[in-house]
């Protein structure tokens, strides 16, 4: 799966797709592949205030559990309603249907601390 270039990435393998004051957040294809079959997703409540790089939830697969770190600061406006019953959507479509939360972001400048798709791919290659 190619790394979409319409969004930015963190070294913790989350992505943020920013459109004005909204950011949609999920995990990368590399992350979902490493996790294997995802069975549970712990998400924050709507209204929760998140700080960039702070923990905001957990993704649990059959073999392991992984903490989610928010790539941007902001207030949670939506959580993906499908993940409670079909967490495997993240495995199937990590970049679109598998989105996890939406944020009203507080500071678009925080983008500068994240990686472009090319930088994220380079980061993945260097970590092998």
């Amino acid at each position, binding site marked *: 799966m190619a790394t979409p270039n319409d969004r930015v990435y963190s070294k913790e393998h989350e992505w943020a797709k920013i459109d004005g004051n909204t950011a949609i957040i999920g995990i990368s294809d590399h992350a979902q592949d490493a996790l*294997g*079959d995802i*069975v*549970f997703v*712990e998400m924050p409540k709507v209204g929760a205030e998140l700080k960039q790089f702070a923990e905001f939830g*957990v993704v*649990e697969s*059959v*073999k392991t*559990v992984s903490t989610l770190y928010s790539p941007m600061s902001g207030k949670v406006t939506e959580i993906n309603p499908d993940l409670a019953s079909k967490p495997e959507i993240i495995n199937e479509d990590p970049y679109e249907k598998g989105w996890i939360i939406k944020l009203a972001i507080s500071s678009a400048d925080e983008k500068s601390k994240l990686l472009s798709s090319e930088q994220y791919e380079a980061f993945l290659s260097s970590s092998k």
Partner: protein
Amino acid sequence: MSTALKQTALYNEHIALGAKMVPFGGWEMPVSYKGIISEHTDVRTNVGIFDIGHMGVVDISGSDALAFIQSVSTNDARLLAEYECQYSILCNENGGAVDDILVYKLEGFYRIVVNASNTDKALSWFKAHSSNFKDLEITHRSDISMLSLQGPKAASLLPELKDLKRNHCGMWQNVLVSRTGYTGEDGFEFFASRDSVKKLWDHFMSLGVAPCGLGARDTLRLEAGLPLYGHEYDDNTSPIEAGYPWAVKFEGHEFVGKAALLAQKQNGPVKILKGLKFSEKAIPRQGAEVFQGDKKIGVVTSGTFSPTLKIPVALAYLDSQVAQNGTTLSVLIRDKSYPAVVVAKKLI
């Protein structure tokens, strides 16, 4: 001692299939191909194939072979007919498990299958306890690659073996095979050479059998309540605590650990292995503490998401007093308490 990971005869096959590889017991093994849940489901409903070339195979021959095995194995190998096998445990003086094993009586010799992670340990244990036996040869058969075919449809692929009884051996295309397995389903385990294992693998793959990795092997055995050394067994845990009193035969049989195990049988074990079923969305893992109210009364040895039951499940050692089926206990998972119901270790 080399620290490089060993590779089975089927290593290249796994790479070609795009398997996720992990280190296990000193070997580089496939953890999954299509996905753990998919592979698990294939074995429960159809048939799957596992490369178990990492398992240790040790042949014991000579006129003292039986006497030697009797001296270290808790089960009674005198009960074996030719081409039959039995589950047993090698115990230390305290009754704790050195390894859990399968003992086979073959034609003119015995074969012991040991865990991959304990192969060196078991071989050392055998050597250390063999000095009283003069006519004895212990051979590590690293030339043998085991292969496992498991699932309700497995027998349909081996019609020549349809009458082979559980825990008995036969031959298939000149390869020794036993009707054994580690999944809770019907199945067959082959003892092939490194060359013939590739032919077997290709044959079953050409029939559309799903390749299955260690991830599914673990979820399958866990649902079936089968122990994994390093989790349900260790040097301080006995087969009686693990729920295998029938594999410890005291009559006319002197073996390492007998006195300790006899005492445990007479007094009742202090802890016993039980299953736990969960209703909330968090998976218990090895080491998670189990409480009754404020009192810690147990520990999780293995936990996973059960693909069959679709809930988190665990195996855990619990204080014998509180281990009744139906009791609700609480388990700490990532600093939060989750309710769990005690059930038999055979979860499905």
